[in-house]
């Protein structure tokens, strides 16, 4: 029972935090990295379909703060995007 109580309290807290201006980073709407989940596609310079999602219409690389990609995956992404550019695929 105490477990349930704490859970309830937590949800209330987080709801409140989302409304507040002085919100903590912890309670912000946080998405997970889309490329770190299980079964996520492998980043590869040949997989243009995937890479196209992470560049703008002008072909610029999107920042990870927009796409929520983790640091490690962002490094891989940028490298493979640059390779694809060299091959005139992107």
């Amino acid at each position: 029972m105490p477990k349930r109580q704490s859970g309830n309290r937590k949800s209330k807290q987080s709801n409140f935090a989302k409304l507040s201006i002085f919100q903590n980073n912890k309670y912000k709407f946080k998405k997970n990295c889309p490329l770190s989940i299980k079964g996520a596609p492998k980043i590869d310079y040949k997989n243009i379909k995937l890479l196209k999602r992470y560049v703008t219409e002008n072909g610029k690389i999107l920042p990870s703060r927009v796409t929520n990609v983790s640091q490690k995956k962002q490094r891989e992404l940028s490298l493979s995007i640059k390779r694809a550019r060299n091959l005139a695929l992107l």
Partner: protein
Amino acid sequence: MNLYEHTIIARQDTSPSEIKQLTEKYSKIVEKNDGEVVKTENWGLLNLSYLIKKNKKGSYIHFKIKGKGSVIDELEKNESIDKKLLRFLTVRVKKFDLETNYFAKKDESEIKESVKN
């Protein structure tokens, strides 16, 4: 021994027979230098996303090579002279991905996806 993925882009006006010659020529160079061509893929004529030497399209040939670094040196030396080619790219990989072919014909890829589902 290292594993390499090697892609070359030929001019748009190369005929299919010439492309065959090119693949043979470069796989011979690989074999001369104690290398081994594990797989070759012909991606066909693809649209370039920007002009390269006034070419709008290019035919892509993809090799998967097992060998020492000297193989790649020799390959790139010959390719930089070759006037039929537009670009080449070599990437060292830890493991070959032999199953997925991102540039297969559409029907084949759809069949593959349906099998997976």
